């Protein structure tokens, strides 16, 4: 295998880890409350602008931007839950879908109004020079984003499956009334789920901003991949999002390199349809 093909795979894994990080917040909300957050991409967009503001106003790099974005976005998540989601959950399915979609547009056009349509980028040296191992170049921002992506996904998974808080959250997801009878407050658990999901989205956004451009519509561009990743990996499954993200990254890279960039989506979506055909619940979702 030639060096350049190894580079294609490595680059694919790096972007794939970012897709996984991006998608884990989305899948978490689904697993907890059976709600699709259509504003997810725009949450990421706001986190990217947070990173940009932290850099331009405070002069801080990602080390400062990541915690700030996590806290800000977690707050936004809780606010969205109490002010919007809690109410639309009582409405018909369509209201739930259109409710978060409306939130997405509100956030996107607020960003247009406040930040303007200009593309912003952080200095490309903000995380140092790329790593070169045996001729393979590993871009530092992507490596950091990818590794933190893996770590956050792992922590979320452990939290859900190994902690008392996670058990309570899952209980609410399974049967809110029964959980309430057991002394768990469903609303509090769901607010925690929104805080966790939006907080991890904040981390994702602040890291993606180190190697991607930031604009009011960037969430739209990235969200398509996030939805595919979630469906591919299985709705509600955090490890599923991880596996699917990495797979999509590598398949995209290889098909773009060998067949051509315009065909990569054909290959990815064909595979996506085939997987859903044989496993409608996704790679690692529960049937």
């Amino acid at each position, binding site marked *: 295998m030639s060096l*350049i093909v190894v*580079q*294609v795979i490595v*680059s*694919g894994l790096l*972007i794939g880890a970012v897709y996984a990080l991006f998608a884990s917040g989305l899948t978490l909300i689904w697993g907890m409350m059976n709600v699709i957050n259509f504003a997810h991409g725009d949450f990421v967009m706001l986190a990217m602008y947070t990173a940009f503001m932290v850099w331009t106003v405070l002069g801080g790099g990602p080390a400062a931007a990541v915690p700030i974005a996590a806290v800000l976005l977690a707050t936004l998540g809780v606010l969205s839950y109490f002010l919007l989601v809690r109410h639309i959950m009582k409405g018909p399915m369509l209201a739930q879908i259109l409710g978060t979609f409306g939130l997405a547009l509100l956030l*996107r*056009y607020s960003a*247009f109004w406040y930040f*303007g*349509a*200009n*593309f*912003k*980028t952080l200095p*490309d040296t903000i995380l140092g020079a*790329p790593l070169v191992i045996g001729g393979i*170049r590993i*871009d530092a921002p*992507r490596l950091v984003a990818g590794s933190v992506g893996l770590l956050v996904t792992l922590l979320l998974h452990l939290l859900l499956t190994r902690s008392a808080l996670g058990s309570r959250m899952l209980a609410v997801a399974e049967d809110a009334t029964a959980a309430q009878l057991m002394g768990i407050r469903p609303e509090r658990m769901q607010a925690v789920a929104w805080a966790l999901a939006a907080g991890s989205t904040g981390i994702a956004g602040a890291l993606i901003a180190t*190697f*991607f*451009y930031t*604009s*009011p*519509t*960037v969430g739209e*561009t*990235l969200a398509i*991949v996030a939805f595919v990743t979630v469906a591919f990996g299985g709705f509600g499954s955090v490890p599923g999002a991880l596996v699917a993200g990495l797979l999509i990254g590598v398949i*995209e*890279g290889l098909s*773009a*390199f060998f067949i*051509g*960039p*315009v065909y*990569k*989506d054909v290959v990815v979506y064909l595979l996506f349809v085939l997987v859903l055909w044989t496993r409608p619940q996704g790679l690692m979702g529960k049937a």
Partner: protein
Amino acid sequence: MWSRKFSLTALCTALLALAYAGAAAAQQTVKVGAIYPLSGNAASAGNYSKAAIELAVDIINNDHPELKDLPLAAGTGLPRLGGAKIEVVFADNQGTPAAGQNQALRLITEEKVQALIGAYQSGITVTTSAMAERHGIPFVNPESVAANLTERGFKWFFRVTPVAGDFARAYADFLKEQKAAGQKVGSIAIVNENTEYGNSVASVIREMFGKEGLPVVQVIPYSANTTDVQPQVLQLKEKNPDVVIFVSYTSDAILYAKTMKDLNWKPSIMIADDAGFNDPSFVSSSGSLVEGLVNRSSFAPGKPGSLSALINDLYKKKNNVDLDDASARAMQGMLVLADAINRAGSTDAAKIQAALRATDLKANQVVTGYNGVKFDDKGQNILASSLITQMQGGSYVPVWPKDKAAGELKLPYKGW
């Protein structure tokens, strides 16, 4: 007492009548619909174009005696329509041909505009101008360069910008000159976004280069709305061509600039076909990563005191950036349309169409570096032209042809 009251009432009535007459005169406006990408991935470029069109309208509607060569600058409004003002209704094409088409229909049927201008992306100009053609409304296209736009036999379509063939010719001449000067141009790659704009420009360049004996060894079409361009850059890295020509919009241009540095690959001559690489937000965010990038432009501010420099100053005062090429061309389009409406002396669509056909602006009467504006039977401006610029120290400097150059061409490409 009574008489004083009376005279006061009379005065008020007279004043009211006067105010009413003034209002009636002010109400006479000519409505023009402008369709641009105000949201979506090209929103940055679209909003700069909007600002440039607003400046054109300001110049037409208000008195600007200092811009004496520019038609309609001195005096207010359109003199042959009794000083009527131009009112532009902007509509957002959202970066999609379908949204552009809907907006065109809305502007024509609901806003009742007398003419349309737009729509930045070639693929969207296709659908919006088809609406105008169907309804018999003049459509001025200031900036879309896909070759086939003027090959549709349209009667209401007028394109002010130079087109793909002109650029391909300029690139071919430029590269042959560099080859003669000892630069490597033995293998050429074209990387193009795959909508109307990128595909048509790439195929015209390929055809022209084939005739000129310039070897195109690699063509990489891709989707502009992409999250990752690493595979494209690795494809280039593998073939390692001497020259690469990018035909890209803004978001993808930024990703290419970053990714080429990340993967440490550059050609000896890198050419960008305007569009994304000329967007002021590309220049400010990524200019330092593409030092020595060769580009094309139809606008350069020029010497202080020249018409283009004065216009650039006016634009910069409002928007805090230099007037870029695409926005300058949008502005020129608006000025051409206003000039035609004025000469038509009417808001009748057929009369405006006839006036557009008779347009004859000289080189000194235009803001862009065109040799003038004059349309052929297909609606193409036959006097449009462009020059070659190079990124030097964070801004584009005209470097070719020599008689229009403001700086020395520096090769090979430096990058970051």
